[in-house]
């Protein structure tokens, strides 16, 4: 008898209807562990069963109601008490009464809006979960089941390259170029660094990917910078007229899509940081924001299409001999 509330007299379990077929993805939790969760997209229906199992089959379970909730919330680590719920749906499964046997309740949240992507960061967490609750006089019995939501985008209409001339007057002039400003998570950054003037003794050059998580508003804004990747692109001293190619494959790094002002609570942005280091370990750098987006992996390009893209040489307009191959994605 659970007179003092030790040990539950009932167990609650949530099972999805499509548990066999639905894809699971890995997601790192707050303490760094990786777990697998069911993957959902915006607009998908979440349906399943809540199984209530009575520990002592003979004993009746009195309750004040059984319900299931679908919640999407943002939790700021420095303000744990306040959960900001941006999605909150509830379905009542049973009116106050009593259960004599273990029972199963069906539920369906139809075409649920899931506007943001699941995110676990340094100072903030955004999560979606189902919570089944049996309300009781002294203590409720509840069970939570986290799911992961991915937000998908399609190839942007406009995706201009980033091209800029920077430097220190009379000392170092470079022109850097990245082929796009918006990259999907499995994309390749194709670029080049062109040296116009080199009056310092450069030892090597690298490109870093920096993730910046911003939480809070107004006076208390926290920035967390994390260097996700450091990739050396040149070893040795360049001279004027030299062009250093960049080819950086993003699929190898753990990154999320760019998130701007999510529910006015936090942002996650990504920057490419070009760093030149001279013989005396002095660092010269230029940071440039890029937008990352998540592509749905439904379409498979044909081998010939892949070959065309992979061997692309982007011609500069004045030197163009033939039309450059255009990247196309099948919409079917």
């Amino acid at each position, binding site marked *: 008898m659970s007179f003092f509330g030790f040990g539950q007299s009932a167990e609650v379990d949530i099972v999805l209807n499509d548990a066999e077929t639905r894809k699971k993805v890995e997601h790192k939790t707050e303490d760094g562990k990786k777990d697998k969760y069911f993957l959902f997209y915006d607009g998908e229906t979440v349906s399943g069963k809540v199984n209530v199992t009575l520990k002592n089959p003979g004993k009746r379970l009195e309750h004040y109601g059984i319900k299931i909730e679908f919640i999407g919330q943002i939790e700021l680590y420095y303000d744990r008490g306040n959960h900001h719920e941006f999605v909150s749906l509830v379905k009542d499964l049973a009116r106050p009464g009593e259960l004599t046997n273990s029972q199963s309740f069906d539920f369906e949240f139809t075409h649920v809006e899931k506007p943001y992507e699941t995110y676990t960061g340094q100072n903030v967490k955004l999560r979606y979960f189902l919570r089944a609750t049996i309300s009781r006089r002294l203590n409720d019995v509840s069970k939570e089941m986290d799911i992961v939501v991915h937000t998908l985008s399609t190839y942007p209409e406009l995706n201009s390259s980033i091209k800029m001339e920077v430097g*220190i*007057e*009379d*000392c*170092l002039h470079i022109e850097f*170029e990245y*082929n796009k400003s918006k990259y999907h998570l499995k994309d*390749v950054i*194709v*670029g*080049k660094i*062109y040296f116009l*003037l*080199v*009056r*310092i*003794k450069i030892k090597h050059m690298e490109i870093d990917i920096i993730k910046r998580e911003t939480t809070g508003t107004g006076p208390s804004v926290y920035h967390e910078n994390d260097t996700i990747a450091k990739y050396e692109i040149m070893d040795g*001293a360049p*001279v*004027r*007229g*030299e*062009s250093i*190619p960049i*080819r950086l*494959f993003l699929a190898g790094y753990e990154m999320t899509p760019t998130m701007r002002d999510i529910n006015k609570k936090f942002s996650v942005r990504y920057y490419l940081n070009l760093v030149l280091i*001279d*013989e*005396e370990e*002095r660092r010269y750098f230029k940071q440039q924001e890029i937008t990352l987006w998540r592509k749905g992996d439904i379409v498979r390009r044909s*081998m010939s299409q*892949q*070959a065309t*893209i*992979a*061997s*692309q*040489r*982007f*011609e*500069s307009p004045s*030197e163009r001999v033939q039309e450059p191959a255009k990247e196309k994605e099948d919409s079917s």
Partner: protein
Amino acid sequence: MADAIADTRRLYSKPQSINDAYGPPSNFLEIDVANPETVGVGRNRYTTYELRLKTNLPIFRVKESRVRRRYSDFEWLRGELERESKVVVPPLPGKALFRQLPFRGDDGIFDDSFIEERRQGLEQFLNKVAGHPLAQNERCLHMFLQDESVDKTYTPSKIRSA
């Protein structure tokens, strides 16, 4: 196993001219601290070092120069750079005051091995500083490296390329 396709995408770049590729680099700057000489007699002795500079950087007025400087001149330069520029100035080799105390077994600050150690430290210091784009804008650095003598009553100012 599916055939992998090598992703060899590149951006177009202008080919480099032969002169740019094989000509002298634009960042030539060599500074040596050499030939220490102790001048004077008795308690008024001091050591000077020869600073030899060779460069093709336009910011330097003279492409080859030789001047003589003593340790206190280096200290002066370091102080000027710290005050006038935003550069984090590297440290000089030690002042070695203990070597100036009497009744030492060796030659104190005129000891050969000490002078050699100091020479190396001064050379390292100068190479670090002279290559710094911000330090190169300071009048005091150019005066120190290339003028006949250091005029400590000068007016600090910034230099722009010739």
